[in-house]
């Protein structure tokens, strides 16, 4: 178990810059998820931490050791791959013991470790099978067993669940989290799935275009996104982005003008938008902050109701997603199923702007932190 620090890491392939100066640091025992769309450089970053690729510049520290000059085998790491990368010619037992054998662990010790790992992951009946005879979930377990066998300082996971079907993925996700809590190991976990990132990580780094867009705790990233990219990437369904004009003054408070099928109304906000009065900003509001009207909430300062047309209803079970339109933008609301309006009719929606965020329409950067939080 060890801490991990990445300092000003850059990587170029020819003239394309894949990583543009990455700085990250986690403490021993923390679970870091690297999340971003495909091509954002997250796998390259993981490969550099593993020593499988060399950075153009920058440093990687595992614990108090600079490992830049060390090969993958000397970094005391283990890695689980997306396609599991089990050796097809070896049975499960050999797959797990191969790394031990390479490190000249005595045979008796090897057997003890295999037993321990197999018990922990419940793969004892599979030990004599070849990878081709295993199901996807079983391969996944074996791949994790291979990583666990060596008891390394740092675990690296490269999208380990993306080849599994939806249900198995949820189960394995929980198991990985449980394993982490039980063993307390340091883990770096790459995924493009923001739900995996949110549920697993102590710390999340959102990567895009080779840069860390935001590095923080899951709740921080969800509630206080640094820019429009992070806000849109994290959360499902995605945050609504509504362009709107700012009215009001510092004294009376600020309002946002909304137009929906000819009806105009103003949403009040507590954010400091003084510099934007009379201009357009992007309102970022999550679907769960637009709901059916709950009378008890209407008294809160930045909550108000408005009549909106229902363009689409998508029942998910616990909630129904209602699509409406504001300022010619598609807007998603999350309402209680029995409160959902009928298709083509109007329904009253309640907007809670206490957690709303604002972005510059051109740069996508965050604007006007909420007054209460800025104070």
């Amino acid at each position, binding site marked *: 178990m060890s801490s991990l620090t990445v300092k000003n890491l850059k990587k170029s392939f020819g003239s394309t810059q894949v990583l543009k100066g990455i700085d990250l640091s986690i403490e021993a025992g923390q679970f870091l998820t690297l999340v971003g769309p495909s091509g954002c450089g997250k796998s390259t970053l993981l*490969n550099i931490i*593993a020593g*499988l690729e060399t950075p153009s510049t920058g440093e990687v520290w595992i614990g108090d050791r600079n490992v830049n000059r060390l*090969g*993958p*085998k000397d970094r005391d*790491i*283990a*890695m689980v*791959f*997306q*396609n599991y*990368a*089990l*050796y*097809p*010619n070896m049975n499960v037992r050999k797959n797990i013991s*191969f*790394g031990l054998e*390479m*490190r000249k662990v005595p045979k008796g010790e090897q057997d003890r470790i295999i037993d321990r790992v197999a018990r922990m992951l419940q793969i004892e009946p599979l030990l004599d099978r*070849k*990878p*081709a005879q295993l199901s996807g979930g079983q391969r996944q377990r074996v791949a994790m067993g*291979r990583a666990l066998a060596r008891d390394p300082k740092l675990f690296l996971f490269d999208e380990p669940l993306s080849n599994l079907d939806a249900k198995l993925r949820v189960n394995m996700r929980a198991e990985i989290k449980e394993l982490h809590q039980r063993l307390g190991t340091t883990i770096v976990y790459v995924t493009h799935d923001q739900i995996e990132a949110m549920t697993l990580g102590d710390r999340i780094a959102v990567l895009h275009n080779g840069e860390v867009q935001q590095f923080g705790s899951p709740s921080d990233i969800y509630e206080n996104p640094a820019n429009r990219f992070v806000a849109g990437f994290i959360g499902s369904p995605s945050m609504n982005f509504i362009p709107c004009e700012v009215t009001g003054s510092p004294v009376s408070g600020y309002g946002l003008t909304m137009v929906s099928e000819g009806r105009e109304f103003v949403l009040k906000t507590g954010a400091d938008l003084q510099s934007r009065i009379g201009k357009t900003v992007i309102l970022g509001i999550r679907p769960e902050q637009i709901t059916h009207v709950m009378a008890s909430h209407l008294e809160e300062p930045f909550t108000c109701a408005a009549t909106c047309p229902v363009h689409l209803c998508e029942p998910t079970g616990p909630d129904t997603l209602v699509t409406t339109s504001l300022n010619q933008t598609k807007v998603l609301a999350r309402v209680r199923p029995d409160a959902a309006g009928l298709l083509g009719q109007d329904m009253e929606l309640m907007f809670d702007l206490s957690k709303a965020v604002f972005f510059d329409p051109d740069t996508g950067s965050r604007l006007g932190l909420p007054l209460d939080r800025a104070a």
Partner: protein
Amino acid sequence: MIDRLPGEASQPLARAAIYACLVGTAMYFLAPLLVMALTSVKSMDEIRDGNLLSLPLEPTLAAWAKAWAKMRGFFWNSLLLVVPAVAISTAIGSFNGYVLTKWRFRGSETLFGMLLVGCFIPFQAILLPMARALGQFGLAGTTAGLVAVHVIYGLAFTTLFFRNFYMGLPDELIKAARIDGAGFFTIFWRIVLPLSPPIVVVCVIWQFTQIWNDFLFGVAYSSGESQPITVALNNLVNTSTGVKEYNVDMAAALLAALPTLIVYVLAGKYFVKGLTAGAVKG
């Protein structure tokens, strides 16, 4: 395999036509082999009297015995040539393929491209320079020299085979092995080679056939007692002295063709499988 499409089943006539066509073609290709086999077990008198396709009245293996006596030494020459040449060219091809796919370096693609050109160089173009080179290394007229020629000429093909096969092996296998602590050679020996049998079979069949059937290199770079069987066969058939013994010629030709035939019969289905195998599932 012809899968029956809907509607096709009700056309027995078309089906019959297809089979007739296939059988006819097969017979056309097999006829020469049949004539050779028939002729080789006839006596010279019978050959002179009968026609090509008539069955032998008194089958005899005398011609085979005579042919074997004449060809035996050269048969072993060919075997001594083929076994090391196939083994070495396959081994190096496999190693080349491993490096070119899993340990790429700056210019490795260019190197591979240049190596590919080797597949398109005709035999005749390298005859003279190769003869000179063999002379300078003191290998002219030796079996070792001929092995070297076949290894060098075959490398382009074997490298191509293995490289394309290893492209289908996931890179993660190599990464996982590196993290597990295995080095360059250990990975090759313990992970990559054990996954290679399908392509090894392809490569061995290809090289065996090429080298066993080669005539030009054999006639150019070997002499007298060290000649391979193809050259010896040519000498036997083309003798201008004495009576032409067609039955012995045919038996000798069949002897010369037998090993490649056996290899195909034994490993033919792996050949097709290996050629089409892209990736190893696992």
